């Protein structure tokens, strides 16, 4: 193994640092700009002010958008978890003809660009108005990505959990239902939390489908932000974006802390 102190080790460190700057740089720009004391987006920021945060929190559009997004993401996370976990259990515990093909099929929406999905779904709903525009359509659409995300997390988790633990619980006197609740579910819990967090963050941050399929009145936060960025582009946009970044960060940290407990 290469020691981190060798010349190559320093090169690797520098590469890692560049990687981090590349990934996190744009976020830093937005966060820095949100504190600027100017009436337009400026980087490097000039002066320091929290007034754009004040403005953002006072703006009913942003607040409304936030609660719409929250409701949407919560529903998507819950339903994805339910459907995705059930599918993962079926794919890992029972071998049936076509299960390998089915697994690949289930995961395929993850590789489609969101815009392609958004356009396809718009055409679909226009031809088959089975759900009213707005929340219902958005939930159904986000599930197309949320379910594969949960599946992606839960498949390896389920493959790692020893199926014999459920039998052991039954052998020790737990009914099948009790065995599932007392042993299998707790063993899966860290995976379930991670999967739910991923689906939640995806739905909360999603733009394309929200733009195409959402209603104007109940627009998710990302759509409100998109509109604002096109119309005025003042640091309020940066302030709201920073708050979003903070929320995602908190969720990921909480999930990690939970997983490493």
């Amino acid at each position, binding site marked *: 193994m290469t020691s981190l102190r060798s010349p190559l080790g320093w090169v690797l460190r520098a590469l890692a640092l560049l990687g981090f700057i590349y990934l996190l740089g744009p976020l830093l720009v937005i966060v820095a700009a949100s504190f600027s004391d100017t009436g337009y987006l400026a980087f490097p920021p000039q002066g320091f002010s929290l007034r754009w945060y004040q403005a953002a929190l006072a703006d009913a559009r942003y607040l409304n958008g936030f609660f719409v997004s929250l409701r949407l993401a919560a529903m998507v996370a819950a339903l994805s978890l339910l459907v995705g976990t059930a599918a993962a259990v079926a794919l890992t515990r029972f071998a049936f003809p076509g299960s390998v093909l089915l697994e690949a099929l289930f995961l395929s929406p993850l590789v489609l660009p969101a815009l392609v999905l958004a356009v396809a779904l718009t055409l679909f709903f226009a031809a088959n108005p089975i759900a009213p525009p707005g929340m219902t359509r958005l939930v159904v659409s986000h599930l197309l990505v949320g379910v594969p995300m949960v599946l992606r997390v839960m498949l390896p988790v389920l493959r790692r959990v*020893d199926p014999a633990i459920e039998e*052991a*619980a*039954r052998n*020790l*006197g737990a009914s099948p239902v009790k065995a599932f609740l007392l042993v299998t579910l*707790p063993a899966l819990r860290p995976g379930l939390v991670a999967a739910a967090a991923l689906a939640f963050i995806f739905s909360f941050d999603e733009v394309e489908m929200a733009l195409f399929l959402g209603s104007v009145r109940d627009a998710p936060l990302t759509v409100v932000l998109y509109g604002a960025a096109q119309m005025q582009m003042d640091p309020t946009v940066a302030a709201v974006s920073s708050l979003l970044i903070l929320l995602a960060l908190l969720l990921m940290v909480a999930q990690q802390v939970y997983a490493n407990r």
Partner: protein
Amino acid sequence: MTSSAELVLDGLARRYGSTTAVARMDLTVAAGELVALLGPSGCGKTTTLRMVAGFIEPSAGRILLRGQDITTMPAHRRDTGMVFQSYALFPHLSVAENIAFGLKRRGVPKPDLAVRVARMVALLKLQGLEARLPRQLSGGQQQRVAVGRALVINPAVVLLDEPFSNLDALLREGTRIELRRLQTELGLTTLFVTHDQAEAMAISDRIAVMNQGRLEQLGTPREVYERPATRFVATFIGRANLFASRDGRSEDGIPLDGPDGTLVLRPERVVLDDAPAAGPNAVSGTVEVLSFLGTGTQAVLRLDGGRALLVEGPAALADHFRPGSRATARWMRADLVALPAEG
């Protein structure tokens, strides 16, 4: 030890479509007895154990535990304690909670529960590890927790599914002696699945040798070794030279002083010397392989007729012979054990 029948398998069978996993198994395990189900993988031993535990439904036959028919009873109502090959410890529960799991399901009151868990922890030398999670334990410690979890509920029958196969060789021997001591002291009726004949010989009261779903022979370790009932048992338990004897000769012309039929000659019964062969039960050949094993020496003697004869002798054998030396193998009439005529 009393000899009442604690566990009875009565014509127990399991079929999957047209394949038979277990064919009409009859077996009685007495109270306090340890019976090994021994056989190669796919012989039906694990299927039999899992039918007793209630994880697999028998296609035919009955299972009686302490006189009660439990054939159709769900697994969680059966009074069995199973040790799984993978141990199957609950990953989110501590050592103490793992051991307490079965007691809690039985509604044992708290003070009593604590006492019984503590006693099991002491018995298995797990003191100081009570609060650890399974992943923080060594393989040997995990194995002891699995054993403790199964024994603490004081089950009518203990089911062991290859409980030593995940331990390294050194630990395995110590652990199986320890488990045998515990089993004898507590008088536990035990059914023990293994593919390792040395393991089965070392700790069992009786061995049920299984092959292709059938029970080939049931007997004490000495019986199955010294008087194997079938060709399979003779070659699966220990090593064996087999002769098809007719009118004082084997199929390849070796003069034999023994009965007609299939004869078993154990390698350690064969003596090697360098005098020429004369008369029956003596045959010459060339030493092909000599393996010094510390406690003895294993040799392969390539006979002039072409057969490879297995020989086990004292360590000094390696001093007298070299690969390529000429040698004569001899044995006594009593060393030739006839298999009962096979159907």
